[in-house]
């Protein structure tokens, strides 16, 4: 009976999918030969509307898996039923993993989602039981979070990798003329939440591994570093600590262990230098001291080196140095304007922005190869790259006429997704810790 019901819903599934809002811009990457074919028939539902399950669960899980990287979500010519006699038909669609779910809402409003994952090829040979079952529960409104958890569990069980479906993206949004605030959204662009409300120019967020926020705000008249000294704690001024600073402060960047904060400070001659503050002692060390611009500090995962932008040789280029300021060497060799470096989580790559044919595009420098690869080839200018925690994608801002929006791309530039329909967004950072 359950199978029969499920089968009925499968028949409905294509119709329900057709209701997907067009602005979601999900770019489907099926048919990539090296990817794992995965199929997600519409869930069996009890006590909850099809519309809710469609938008809050099925579409969410489909998008999560599609954008995860290793999966090709099979959406065409799906068999109407899911009982073992149909496994051969599922295999013929390219499906390797059949993901069966049910969503139940109790009278009290509690949610229960049952997950069954079937290896359809192995099941044909051995008539085997599902690969794994799992039960998820949550309160009213938790359906999206449950979908993200399922996507991450599938990623872990089927590929051995830690997924990013449950991650969040922190960014800057313009809320009025000259007024910008820090916001946060889920990785799929849902649930935008303001993190600051200073009614001032607020820029350049950085998120520590324990979720602590740091950013720049002009709320006191000049740019200062503000943020959290403790996880979940109040947002306070971090630097300058007291009194009159020597110069304006910009671009905070937490070290990978969250114990140090790199930032940029202007001097009395209009130069800017990279500084590093030890959060425990408050001691600040100057890493660069040259007659030029030094900005955009980004740490390697070991916290032993930083990449940064400097115009010490004329135009802006990306340089590397030790975390004591030693051993400065130039990374980018091509082009007249390179900047916004972002060191990848594994340490093997540095994403950056380069002006190319009058526009700004994303590039990735592979340290092992000593070579750069172009990621975006835009009609628009792309800026501020930041890595996904699993290093599979890059989030960035892009726009042709001022209205910058947030996108993510894989490293080939082939699957580009608009993150969220919000204009005037910049400086995204991708985090597991919020």
């Amino acid at each position, binding site marked *: 009976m359950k199978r029969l019901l499920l089968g009925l819903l499968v028949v409905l599934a294509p119709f329900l999918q057709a209701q997907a809002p067009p602005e979601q811009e999900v770019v489907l990457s099926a048919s990539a030969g090296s990817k794992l074919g995965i199929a997600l028939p519409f869930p069996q539902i009890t006590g909850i509307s099809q519309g809710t399950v469609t938008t809050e669960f099925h579409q969410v899980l489909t998008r999560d898996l599609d954008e995860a990287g290793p999966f090709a979500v099979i959406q065409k010519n799906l068999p109407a039923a899911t009982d073992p006699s149909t496994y051969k038909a599922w295999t013929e669609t390219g499906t390797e993993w059949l993901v069966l779910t049910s969503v139940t809402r109790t009278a009290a409003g509690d949610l229960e989602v049952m997950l069954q994952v079937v290896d359809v090829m192995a099941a044909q040979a051995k008539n085997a039981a599902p690969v794994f079952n799992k039960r998820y529960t949550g309160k009213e409104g938790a359906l999206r979070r449950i979908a993200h958890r399922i996507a991450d569990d599938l990623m872990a069980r089927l590929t051995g990798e830690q997924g990013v479906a449950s991650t969040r993206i922190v960014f800057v949004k313009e809320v009025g*003329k*000259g007024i*910008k605030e820090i916001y946060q959204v889920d990785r799929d662009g849902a649930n935008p939440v303001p993190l600051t409300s200073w009614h001032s*120019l607020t*820029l*350049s967020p950085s998120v520590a591994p324990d979720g602590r926020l740091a950013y720049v705000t*002009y709320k006191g*008249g*000049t*740019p200062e570093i503000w943020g959290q000294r403790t996880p979940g704690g109040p947002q306070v001024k971090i630097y300058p600590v007291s009194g009159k600073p020597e*110069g*304006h402060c*910009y*671009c905070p960047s937490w070290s990978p262990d969250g114990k140090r904060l790199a930032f*940029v400070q*202007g001097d*009395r*001659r*209009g*130069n*800017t230098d990279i500084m590093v503050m030890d959060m425990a002692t408050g001691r600040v060390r100057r890493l660069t001291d040259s007659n030029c*611009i*030094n*900005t*955009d500090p980004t740490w390697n995962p070991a916290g032993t080196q930083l990449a940064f*932008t400097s*115009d010490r040789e004329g*135009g*802006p280029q990306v340089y590397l140095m030790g975390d004591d300021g030693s051993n400065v060497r130039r990374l980018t060799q091509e082009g007249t*304007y390179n*900047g*916004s470096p972002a060191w990848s989580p594994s340490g093997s790559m540095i994403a950056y*922005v380069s*002006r190319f044919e009058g526009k*700004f595009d994303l590039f990735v420098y592979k340290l092992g190869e000593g070579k750069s690869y172009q990621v975006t080839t835009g009609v628009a*200018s792309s*800026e*501020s790259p930041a890595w996904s925690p699993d290093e599979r994608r890059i989030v960035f801002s892009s726009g*042709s*006429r*001022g209205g910058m929006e947030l996108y993510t791309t894989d490293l080939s530039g082939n699957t580009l997704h608009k993150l969220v329909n919000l204009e005037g967004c*910049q*400086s995204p950072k991708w985090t597991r810790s919020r």
Partner: protein
Amino acid sequence: MRFVRNLIPLSVILLLGVGVACKKPAPAPMEQPAPVAAPAPPPAAAETTNDDAARLKAEADAEAARKAAAEAARLAKFKADAEAALKDINFDFDKSDIRDMDKPKLQAIADFLRTYPDAKIQIAGNCDERGTVEYNLALGERRAHAAQSYLAGLGTADARLATISYGKERPEVQGHDEQSWAANRNCQFTLQ
């Protein structure tokens, strides 16, 4: 007459502007051990007539009006001079050099600050929308300091020249063409 005599010192007090005494309602003279005339009014006041009081008041009013008008004129001239002197200067792409064509503008700002020794200004460095957020904040910083340094060379004390950079975060013009970009690569000077 008694009434008038009592009134005169009160009007003098009012004229002198010692309003504090008038703010509290006078206590009702229920029990007054001393006669009302006990604090003898000064002779000058005693001889003052109503006409004299009016004349004094008119003179004071006229003087105050003259002062206010002078102050308003001074302020208007200050504002007009500030508006005339505090003109944006502009920069080439990714540059912070003061252009020859902008040097007379900076001279005008230095002259203005010499004329008004109490005036202080803020120099805001701005960039066009091209290029990265952080590099442009640094470039705006450098532009503001270039203007500050040039003004210091013309004899203006650094302490009167605050600087700030908005990078490309607060464009003056919203367009996305060469003309708008050229306008947005600037230093703006505002009174503090």
